[in-house]
C-alpha cells in the first residue's frame, strides 16, 4: 500500500503524499524533537522536511525506501536547525514552562520530562539524533546506523556513550536503584 502511495505521489498526487507523511511523521517527529529540543522547532523542521521531500520525491528511486529516505531528510533538516539554534530556545523547555501549562498535572511526570529535555542540551547534536531515532522513532539500532550513515559498531558505541551522558546530565549517579 505504501509503495502505491509513493508511486502515486511521484506522479504528483498530493493526497497520496499527505497520507505518506501522516503515516511516517509521528515517529520521525519524535526523533527530530530530540535533536532540536523544542516542539515548535521540531514542527518547523518537519514542515520543511515535508516540503523538501515533496520537491525531491522524484529522486527517490526505490519506493520501498520511502520511510528511511524521509527520515534522513528530516534528521538532516534538524541538524541544520540545531546548528543555528544555539541556546536561544532552551528556555522553552524548562521545568517552569512545561509544568506551568494549564491542564497538566505536575505529578504526572512532566517535571521529569522537562529535566530530560534540558539534559539533552548537554549532548552533541549527533548523539541527540541517535537517541531520538532509537528511543523517539523506536528504530532498531541497525536502522539508526543506516539513517545516520554510520557503521553499526559506531552506532552501538555512541549509543552507550550518549546514554551515559544523558544519565549523568539527569543526575543519575550510577548508583543502582
Amino acid at each position, binding site marked *: 500500500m505504501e509503495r502505491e502511495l509513493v508511486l502515486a505521489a511521484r506522479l504528483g498526487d*498530493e493526497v497520496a503524499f499527505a497520507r505518506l507523511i501522516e503515516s511516517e*511523521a509521528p515517529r520521525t517527529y519524535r526523533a527530530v524533537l530530540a535533536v532540536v529540543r523544542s516542539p515548535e522547532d521540531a514542527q518547523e523542521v518537519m514542515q520543511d522536511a*515535508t516540503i523538501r521531500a515533496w520537491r525531491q520525491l*522524484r*529522486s527517490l*528511486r526505490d519506493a520501498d525506501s520511502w520511510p528511511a529516505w524521509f527520515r534522513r531528510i528530516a534528521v538532516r533538516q534538524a541538524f541544520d536547525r540545531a546548528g543555528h539554534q544555539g541556546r536561544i530556545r532552551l528556555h522553552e523547555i524548562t521545568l517552569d514552562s512545561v509544568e506551568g501549562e494549564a491542564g497538566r498535572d505536575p505529578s504526572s511526570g512532566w517535571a*521529569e*520530562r522537562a529535566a530530560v529535555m534540558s539534559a539533552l542540551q548537554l549532548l552533541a547534536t549527533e548523539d541527540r539524533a541517535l537517541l531520538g531515532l532509537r*528511543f523517539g522513532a523506536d528504530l532498531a539500532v541497525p536502522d539508526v546506523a543506516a539513517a545516520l550513515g554510520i557503521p553499526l559498531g559506531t552506532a552501538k558505541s555512541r549509543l552507550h556513550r550518549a*546514554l551515559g551522558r544523558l544519565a549523568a546530565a539527569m543526575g543519575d549517579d550510577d548508583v543502582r536503584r
Partner: protein
Amino acid sequence: MSGDEPILTDREERAATALRATLHDIAAAEPFRVDREAFTAPVARKGTVRGRLPVGLAAALAVVLVAAMAVFAAPRLGIGGPAAPQEHFDNGQFAFDYPATWQTLGIRSDGGLPVFGTGSWRLGCQGDPSATGCGEEITDVSGGRIVVTMWVNSGAPAACVKNDALGAAPLGDAWIRNAAEDRVFYPAGPTTWEIRRPGYDFGMNGNLWIQAVTDNPAELANAKAMVATFHWEAAGDYCHSPTAAPTLPGTAGHFDNGQLSFDYPTGWRVLAGDYYEGMAVVQVYAVLGTGSWQSGCRSSANGGGCTGDTVDVSSGRVVVKIWSRVDGPVNACMGNDHATATFGPNAVIGSTYGSAVDWQIRYPGAEFQWEGNIDVAVWSDGPAGLAQAQALIASFRWAAGLPSAAGNCAQIDTPAPPTVGPGPT
C-alpha cells in the same frame, strides 16, 4: 533481542526509558500535523485534481487536457514551426531539435542527460549526500530565461507491466503527456512532459521526462516546439526479448556507436544488440561471445518482466554483456572513486552480476556507481575466456568530446585525507 541491539546497563536503561517517555509524551501533547497547503499549489494543478475531484469531473478535465494538448500539438505537425535557427540533439536513443540560442548548461548525474537553456542551472548536492542524493537543483531563470531538464523515469511501476494510458496526445513520433505544473517550488512555474518509449505506457520506468522552467511565454513555446520534434531512434517493444542475431554498430571485431567503442574477437558471435531491459531500466549495448545466451526479459505481450539471463559457457566458452544502468543509485554523488582493478588504461571496480563477474568503467568525469557508467558482465568457466573479456575492457574507449559529468557533485566530494608520515620514534 536481536544481536544487533546492544545490551544496556541499568543506568542506561533508566535514561533510555525516561527519554522515550519524554519524547512520546511531548509529541502527543504537541503533535505535528501535516500542513497540506505547504506542498499544494496556490492554483489548481492537474496532479491535484486527479486525487480530489469526482471521477466524472476528473474525466471531463482529462478530455480538456487532451484537447489542449492537441491544440498545442497542431502547429508541430506540419502546420507551422519555430522559425528560429535550431540545433539538433541525438544521443542514439532519441533526438530532438532545440533553439540555437540555448546552451548546454550542465549534465544531470541521473542518466547523464544534458540541461539546456538560457538560464543558469547546477545540481545542488547540498549537505549530506546520503541524506537526499543529488536531487536538489539550483535554477535561475530570472529575466525571462529558461532552463530545460530531462531525465529518465525510475522508481515508477515496472516497465513492461501494462498500465492504462493517462491523458495524452500523439505528438509527432511520441506520445506525450503534460505531466504536471508545479508552481510551488519554482516560482517561474515549470511545465513537465512525459514521453513514453515505444511499447511503454505512461508512468513506467524508462520513459523520458522533460521539464521547462521559465516565466517567458516565448521560451515556453520554444520548449513545446522542442518537445514536438522529439522522436525515439528505435521503434518497437523495448521489453522484447532479443532473439535474432543483430548487427552491431562498427566493424567486425570493433564496436563503435559514436559514444563508446571496444574491440572483441572476430570469432565471437553477436548474441544481442542494443535493447533495454525494462524492469531495472538497463540499457544493453551488446551481448557477445562463444557461449549461448538467452535474455531473462520477457516481452510485454507475455507478461513482461526480467529475471536472470540464461547462459551456458561450458567447455571454456565465454559470454560478455556490455550494459549500463539508466537508473543509478540514489546516492550518486557519494565518493566512489576507488578502482579495484585496471585493464589497459581503464580503471574498474569489480562486482557480481548474477552468475557473472562484472567490471564497471566510468563515464568521463563520473565516479563509480553513477548512472551512465558502462558495465561489462562476463560469464566464463575458464581463464581463456576471462582473459579475452579483460582484453575487451582494456580496449574500451569513450568518444572524444562527450560532456563530462565532473563537477555535478564537486561541492560535496571530500578531499583525500592527508598522507600521514611516520610518527616520532
